[in-house]
């Protein structure tokens, strides 16, 4: 079976999803149901974050248990300027991406010197550091979080105070980010990253400075997730350190694994499944975390390919 036929099912699904996403605001506008719009907004933002995590986790084999830090940093880069009355959108976005990049560069330089379990725990610890840092800064709300009064201002380009505009802004962002990640993974750079996951020693002996490649990849993933964080701040109009709680990082990994690490759309499926499951289970019972946790264990024990693995399997079987 060649690659093209295996691709068809997921291409079809992508097309259908995009079609639905583009017309969703019209449907919710007609039925006056803002709830679904909010749900999909959250889903798309988390999908960007999960896709950026997949870049390092799935393609690079770097298991970061601290990716939610960038969501928080990005969101605070919208919130703190807004707190001082600066609502310049491009500036905030730039700040979010730059601050995330710098944080990723500094922590990545240390984390990537280590391997395996050390890497998992250190990424976790650094995120906890940022978490406690923001918890103890009283000026920006500390534990209670910070309310963002005004969303990012993009002048006459787009007014995201309007929820429908924000929706399309997030949707376009998602498509651009996915496209970017697709390009990265298909590039020479992406192949080096992939290669150093499967056999770092070999890549090094061919002459690649794998440490540098991995660090750059780590920074790119941080920047993309920081951007997602800026969107999240705009969407929720509120930031709290809780966003970068280590449970939040765990949830991002769950999304990636749930969707399947191998493919571009895996994290999107994963984020969708996660948000929908969360919404559905929490309406079902107060103790929904139990079902959620049990499900997580089941996925690890029995369903290693994730959702995109199932899609590939079905696509193969139909032929």
């Amino acid at each position, binding site marked *: 079976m060649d690659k093209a036929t295996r691709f068809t099912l997921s291409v079809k699904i992508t097309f259908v999803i995009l079609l639905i996403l583009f017309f969703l605001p019209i449907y919710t506008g007609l039925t006056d149901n803002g709830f679904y719009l909010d749900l999909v907004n959250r889903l798309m933002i988390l999908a960007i974050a999960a896709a950026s995590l997949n870049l390092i986790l799935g393609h690079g084999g770097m298991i970061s248990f601290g990716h939610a830090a960038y969501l928080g940093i990005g969101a605070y880069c919208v919130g703190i300027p807004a707190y001082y009355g600066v609502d310049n959108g491009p500036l905030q976005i730039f700040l979010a991406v730059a601050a995330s990049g710098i944080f990723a560069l500094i*922590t990545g330089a240390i984390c990537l010197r280590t391997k395996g*379990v050390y890497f998992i725990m250190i990424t976790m610890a650094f995120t906890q550091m940022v978490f406690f840092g923001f918890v103890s800064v009283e000026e920006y709300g500390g534990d209670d979080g910070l309310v963002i009064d005004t969303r990012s201002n993009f002048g006459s380009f787009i007014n995201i105070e309007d929820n429908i505009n924000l929706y399309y802004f997030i949707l376009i962002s998602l498509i651009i980010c996915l496209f970017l990640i697709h390009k990265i993974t298909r590039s020479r750079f992406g192949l080096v990253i992939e290669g150093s996951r499967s056999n770092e020693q070999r890549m090094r002996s061919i002459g690649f400075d794998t440490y540098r490649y991995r660090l750059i990849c780590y920074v790119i993933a941080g920047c993309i997730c920081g951007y997602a964080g800026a969107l999240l701040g705009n969407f929720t109009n509120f930031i709290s350190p809780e966003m970068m709680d*280590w449970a939040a990082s*765990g949830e991002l990994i769950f999304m990636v694994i749930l969707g399947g690490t191998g493919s571009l759309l895996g994290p999107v499926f994963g984020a969708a499944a996660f948000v929908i499951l969360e919404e559905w289970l929490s309406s079902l019972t107060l103790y929904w*975390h139990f079902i959620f946790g049990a499900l997580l*264990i089941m996925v690890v*024990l029995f369903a290693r390919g994730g959702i995109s693995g199932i899609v590939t399997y079905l696509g193969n079987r139909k032929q």
Partner: protein
Amino acid sequence: MDWVLFVTQMLNGLQLGVLLFLLASGLTLIFGIMDFVNLAHGSLYMIGAYFCGTFTDITDSFLYGIILAIPATAVVGVIVEIIIIRRLYSQNHLDHVLATFGLILCFDALVHFAWGPEGMAIPLPAILDGQIEILPDIVFPTFRLLIITTGLTLAIILYLVITRTRSGMLIRAGASNRTMIGALGIDIKTLFTLVFGAGAAMAGLAGMMISPITEASIGMGNDIIIVAFVVIIIGGIGSVKGAFIAAILVGFIDTMGRSFLDTFLKLLLSAESAETAAPALSAMLIYILMATILIFRPQGLFPPRGR
């Protein structure tokens, strides 16, 4: 600097240190022998605290509460190991992390279901509820002193068990070459289960000892477990000696930072900026310590030999 406050805070730091050691020693043993990352170790800390609360209620005695709660927590650990953890040993670290993260969610929900959303205060018996004058002018809560002595005693016992007994020898052998001791005819499956149970008991004991001070609450293990990770990273994963030294170090630095960093910063900065910087910086201090140590020693201070 206030001398009395300084000594009191030193003791508080020591107390945090021994608690961290109780958690970290289990974590580091489980990792050292089974190559298993257990995020849910903090849940056993929480379970221990809740068990202790319930048994104290029933028996009306904190001592009996602890005596009953330790084996109960160990049993929970053993059951979890047999049902879930055992199936994960052969899988990779990512799977360990995910599955034990799932376990945390399950444990938190179960505790919520069994004990309700509010915390559980655990009353101390009158003898432990007072204060002792340990040095002239320096009074320290009796119970905290008890925590320190218990923790240090356990550290010594653990040291003796690991260096002087046959099971300790198996543990050391397992940490340096798992496959080999299996090939020599040792029943590693049972060894793993027992070590996991012992780790659970120690984590549970840490929870029991802290709960009269802070009360038992849902998610109480989730914050301290990260600090325990910092401890075993600094100490070198798999090394009990490293875990002990790092635990005491982290305990001291964290406590001292929180109480004296603002005084110290005022020497360097203006009073106002010291006031704002100190809380954030002291909260981040142990992570900065970890990062600094890792720059020079990526494997921690005492990396175990043979891996």
